């Protein structure tokens, strides 16, 4: 056994310089990053964008790599991927010569045990050189859906569930270490009932409370899963009233959806936050 050399970690760009600045360069390789959000906040958009930008060469922030997308929620958004890949290809015409969608590999996963079963297959796939570009990004969408159906709320089931968390994240981290992959895992939120003020054992990370769409939430899967990931990013949306128009008897309120990305915890990032928008071309950060 020898001590390993301390080499700088490679980062995978998010595709937008504002978001990259917030994340210290992008999603780091060799570690497990979690994206927590309630539904329709833009998690899938982020991940689809990552799979495309991974194909760029390292000089442009990518990894020259193909990606493996494991999805649990059907159907896989093929149409959106097609739109994104068209605009991606046109904006990076000189760097991407073939169809970008050919370097995104998609596999369906039904539940946690199925994921454990296909781990050896995933390792073979990553290790083999059969893909045009080596696989350097694995996306799991979403990890919460794998666990929500078969485990009840009693201590025995929760313990069994925790064992699976550690096993799955252990294997993912082993793969990440061995093949220098970036692993992105998506998680859902649940409503949070409990005290936040004062000395609280339940607070994890920089934000004392996570709020989305006006309600207080916390990431699904609990404290045990929080330990399994290296970094956690929180996406949320809020409706804001940006203008009023007095139209006769009633006031028309103009509402706008504001979306933000927050760093909940990461070993290499200060607590930072960034606003973003989702357009036809993809996800872009906004400097405000």
């Amino acid at each position: 056994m020898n001590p390993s050399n301390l080499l700088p970690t490679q980062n995978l760009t998010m595709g937008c310089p504002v978001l990259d600045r917030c994340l210290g360069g992008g999603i780091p390789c060799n570690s497990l990053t979690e994206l927590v959000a309630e539904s329709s906040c833009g998690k899938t958009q982020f991940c689809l964008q990552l799979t495309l930008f991974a194909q760029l060469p390292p000089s442009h922030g990518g990894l020259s790599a193909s990606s493996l997308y494991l999805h649990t929620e059907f159907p896989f958004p093929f149409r959106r991927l097609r739109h994104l890949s068209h605009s991606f290809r046109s904006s990076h015409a000189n760097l991407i010569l073939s169809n970008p969608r050919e370097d995104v590999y998609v596999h369906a996963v039904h539940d946690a045990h199925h994921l454990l079963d296909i781990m050896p297959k995933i390792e073979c796939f990553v290790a083999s050189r059969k893909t045009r570009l080596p696989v350097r990004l694995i996306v799991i969408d979403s990890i919460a859906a794998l666990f929500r159906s078969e485990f009840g709320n009693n201590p025995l089931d929760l313990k069994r569930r925790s064992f699976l968390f550690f096993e799955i994240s252990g294997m993912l981290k082993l793969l990440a270490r061995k093949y220098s992959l970036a692993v992105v895992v998506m998680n859902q939120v649940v409503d949070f009932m409990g005290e936040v003020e004062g000395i609280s054992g339940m607070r994890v990370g920089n934000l004392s409370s996570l709020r989305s769409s006006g309600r207080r939430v916390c990431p699904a899967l609990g404290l045990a899963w929080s330990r399994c990931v290296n970094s956690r990013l929180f996406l949320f949306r809020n409706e804001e009233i940006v203008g009023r128009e007095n139209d006769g008897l009633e006031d028309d309120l103009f509402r706008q959806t504001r979306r933000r990305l927050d760093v909940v915890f990461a070993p290499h990032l200060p607590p930072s936050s960034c606003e973003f928008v989702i357009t036809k071309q993809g996800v872009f950060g906004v400097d405000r």
Partner: protein
Amino acid sequence: MEVGRLPLSASQRGKLISAGYTTLASLSSISPSDLARDLKVPESEAFEMLKVAKLGCGLEQPDKHTAIVNGAQTAWDILNEEKLLPRITTSCADLDKILGGGINCKEVTEIGGVPGIGKTQLGIQLAVNVQIPVDCGGLGGKAVYIDTEGSFMVERTLQIAEASVVNWSSYSELLWKESQACRVEIQPTDILEKIYYFRICTSTEQIALINYLDQFISEHKDVKIVIIDSVTFHFRQDFEDFALRNRLLGGMALKLMNLGKKYNLAVVIFNQVTTKCTEGSFQLSLALGDSWSHCCTNRVILYWNGDERNAYIDKSPSLRSASASFSVTSGGIRNSASKHKRIRVM
């Protein structure tokens, strides 16, 4: 002291060692005739050898107190030794105060907390602070960092190292205003080179590495701190059989304690919190169970108090229970910026 260092002839040394007398302690209570019989030398020669051994022993202990039981140390000797060892600072004055000056060598300190509270940051800060040059009041040693979770980031370490070098330079300038020879000439990349980083991915690797550490540290004698971040990760999954897990953990803890005592280094172990189900309610406690909690010398728990990070001395044979707040900045661990009374004694 080793027999090999005594001023005896090489053949005499060889005879002593092959007969099994490797330390002075083994020679101190034997009579010349027994030694002569064991080594097959004339008794006068054995007598001479013992005289040299006693002289060597005598030079080691300038004060008049000699050990009554050979091979043991008196508490007075131990106290003197402890006073000579500087402690490893955490760069936060309040935290150092409740720790009695910093992390102590020869002790196993366990630090636990929820994810995101700053355990890895504290670990990186300690790995950098152990390298504080002796001129600035530090240990000038190297660090072994064992990473089980993959949370060690080189960029962050470089950031902390750069901030530390600036601190040390300004400190040494304050201390030695006239003499230019004590200027700190360390580069941040030198600091990175003195951290031996091991990444382990399974529980078997963890056990194997701890077994190997003895050999590694005997080859790299200037390692002064071993940081394990965190000890729980792999032991929370693979083991269905808790008895086996406890045995393995106990063995590991014993090895780490012996390592600390033998090579005079500090061992810092990071632990996670978990929810314990007691009588239907869920409480937070440190992971790995009650039997593990006996294995460490000191125990520090990190927790959130509103928006502040706090540290609490949970168990220690010599420190009183107190809590202090600290913050994590871009330069590492520092004092908390809040105006409240920082140190609370329980």
